[in-house]
């Protein structure tokens, strides 16, 4: 083909034509014709699988909600008080419903979702925006899901809701989550970070049908459920407390009431209730005032239940003993130009002063203590401070420093006026007296456990102070048992089979410019059994009518609660009732 280094195209062309006309040439031509598409497809295949397609969006991303943690009471996992639950929210697209199935669709919706047939039929007439995605209702029943989604035109979105299986129980403690799934009250708010799960994610690529190409998955992070919270509250005790509280508030047409039950030796709260309560799942139907946990956040003048604190301080300072006589005057005592009324008269012992709740005797004890010491003891009992129990809304109460006291202040503060406390402070003070002077930190959360069982946080009993010596605490406890005996102000608080130590309190409600003459706080706080105290109960009722004293309103509620709690906790009675009937016993093997 080349002549002297130059290509001879004429002869090359002749040879090519000759080859093309030959059998081999024709065979090669056919071979190439049939093979080229395969080569092209192979090239395309390689390009699709191995090429860089950054300029085309094939990204597939899907996130999964991490389930919010559960809240349990103290009895393990038997009683989940708050759970997150996947349910279906059904919707209707009327235009997609087959005409011949319309009647069946309507009937199925009415039967399974408790909707009225008139309403369902109206949805078929809707036009305009939103007419193709009409919410029908929710259900967690998979049979209902199967029945409804069998029809064209009915779809279901899976959503996560927060459910409170026990309804109103512990509503103020549990709180609620808002529509965005964020804790907004109570434990749900306080431990929102711990309860919240972490979402899971899949990052991958998708095909032309928008389905994930599994082999292209680059990231898979499973969702992490939130931690579970175990409270110290006991559902059964809480139920008893809430029932009795409701009964008491309704009986005396009060505004509200609250009750706390605390385990003395450890400080754990066994019940924390406020009535009226609310339904956490329908929180938006209630006012913010109804969400408020009054047992922690109501600041009120305690009245006579403060006297035990004053008496314990008096004894601890060795200013007297249980038999020291104090002049309770003659029904009224003028000091600093103001009268202090009393229903007790004459010389009475310190023990009697507490039993009969003498204002004058207690005021005189406070004067002997002096402002500085009285204030110090009140602070030692944690009045004027928070316990930081972990719930939002806990108040510290109002206790002014002695520098701001008037001459009258010690006589009033000592009997529970001119000082404002919370129910939690009061119950803790009495628990300290019952616990030989040791004040335990009250707490509500026992432990926080991750979904895989790891203990994230464990709370333990903690001694936070010792306001009085053990022998003084025992003395005061002995005096307080007299309150429920004959002649005491709290006879209605007696519990069959058990000795009770406690104190009644009736305090006028503070209003602008003074005190109300019609509205009172009626309280009773006590512990059972007095010989070896196990639990303390505080019951306070705000504005009971027509009766308004602690001995009449709150003491019976205390008795009912303490009776059930003592039996529930299987505490051996320390005062078995006498056998009043006559029996002739024969062959008693014991």
């Amino acid at each position, binding site marked *: 083909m080349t002549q002297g280094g130059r290509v001879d195209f004429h002869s090359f062309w002749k040879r090519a034509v000759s080859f093309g006309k030959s*059998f*081999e*040439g024709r*065979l*090669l031509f056919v*071979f190439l014709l049939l*093979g080229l598409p*395969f080569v092209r497809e*192979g090239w395309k*295949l390689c390009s699709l*699988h191995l090429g860089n397609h950054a300029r085309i969006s094939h990204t597939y991303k899907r996130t*999964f909600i991490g*389930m919010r943690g559960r809240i349990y009471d103290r009895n393990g996992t038997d009683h*989940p008080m708050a*759970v*997150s*639950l*996947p*349910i279906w929210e059904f919707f209707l697209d009327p235009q997609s419903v087959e005409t011949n199935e319309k009647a069946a669709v309507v009937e199925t919706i009415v039967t399974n979702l408790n909707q009225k047939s008139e309403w369902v039929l109206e949805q078929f007439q809707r036009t305009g925006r939103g007419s193709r995605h009409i919410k029908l209702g929710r259900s*967690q*029943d*998979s049979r209902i899901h199967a029945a409804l989604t069998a029809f064209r035109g009915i779809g279901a979105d*899976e959503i996560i809701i927060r*459910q409170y*299986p*026990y*309804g109103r129980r512990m509503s103020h403690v549990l709180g609620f989550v808002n529509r965005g799934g964020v804790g907004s009250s109570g434990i749900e708010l306080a431990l929102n970070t711990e309860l919240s799960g972490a979402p899971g994610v899949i990052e991958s690529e998708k095909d032309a049908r928008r389905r*994930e*190409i*599994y*082999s292209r998955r680059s990231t898979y992070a499973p969702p992490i459920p939130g931690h579970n919270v175990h409270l110290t509250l006991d559902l059964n005790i809480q*139920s008893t407390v809430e029932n009795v509280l409701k009964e008491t508030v309704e009986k005396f047409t009060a505004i509200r009431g609250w009750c706390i039950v605390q385990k003395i030796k450890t400080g754990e709260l066994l019940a924390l209730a406020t009535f009226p309560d609310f339904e956490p799942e329908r929180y938006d139907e209630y006012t913010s005032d109804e969400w408020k946990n009054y047992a922690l956040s109501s600041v009120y003048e305690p009245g006579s239940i403060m006297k035990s604190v004053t008496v314990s301080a008096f004894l601890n300072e060795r200013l007297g003993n249980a038999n020291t006589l104090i002049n309770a005057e003659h029904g009224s005592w003028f000091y600093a130009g103001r009268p202090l009324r009393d229903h007790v008269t004459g010389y009475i012992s310190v023990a009697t002063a507490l039993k009969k709740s003498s204002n004058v005797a207690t005021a005189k004890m406070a004067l002997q203590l002096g402002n500085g010491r009285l204030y110090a003891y009140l602070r030692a009992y944690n009045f004027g401070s928070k316990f930081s129990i972990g719930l939002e809304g806990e108040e510290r109460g109002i206790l002014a420093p002695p520098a701001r006291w008037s001459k009258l202040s010690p006589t009033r503060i000592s009997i529970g006026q001119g000082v404002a406390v919370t129910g939690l402070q009061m119950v803790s003070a009495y628990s300290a007296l019952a616990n030989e002077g040791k004040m335990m930190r009250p707490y509500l959360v026992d432990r926080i456990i991750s979904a895989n069982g790891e203990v994230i946080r464990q709370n333990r009993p903690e001694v936070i102070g010792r306001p009085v010596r053990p022998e003084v605490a025992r003395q005061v406890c002995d005096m307080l048992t007299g309150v429920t005996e004959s002649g005491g102000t709290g006879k209605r608080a007696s519990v*069959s*089979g058990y000795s009770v130590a406690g104190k009644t309190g009736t305090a006028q409600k503070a209003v602008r410019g003074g005190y109300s003459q019609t509205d009172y706080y009626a309280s009773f706080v006590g512990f059972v059994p007095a010989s070896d105290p196990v639990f303390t109960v505080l019951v306070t009722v705000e504005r009971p009518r027509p009766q308004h004293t602690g001995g009449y309103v709150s003491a019976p509620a205390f008795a009912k609660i303490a009776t*059930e709690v003592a*039996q529930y906790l299987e505490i*051996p*009675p320390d005062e*078995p*009732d006498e*056998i009043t*009937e*006559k*029996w*002739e*016993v*024969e*062959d*008693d*093997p*014991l």
Partner: protein
Amino acid sequence: MAKRNQYKYNAKMHKLPLSTNVIGLLLLSVAGVLGYCVFDAQCNTLGNEIRRKEVEKRNLENEYLREEARWNASKTPAKLEEALIAHGLVMQYPKEEQLVRMDRKGRPVQGQLSIAKFHRNPQGTDPIAKHK
């Protein structure tokens, strides 16, 4: 001669247009491509199966949560009360006379056990205590 001509003819007619090396290379490529396609299809099938199982697992987990919630809802105090009423059962704490008091050492208080036994058997078929 005829045989040689026949041989030449056959060789001419059956001569391959390409060398065996090239054909072998092409066949190898096609086999590779086909093999790749086959394995890719299998991977996709497995991937679909895995995705299907993942969805099934999530659905089962959710179904478990729903069943658990249904069970918890059926044993709330309110539901238990309804069940008791439906079966005509009334439960309450024992009355005072049904209680046997024990002291701290676990011994019944004097006479209490006898009285409890008598109350359970008022016809007196096996009386231990008699009411005066």
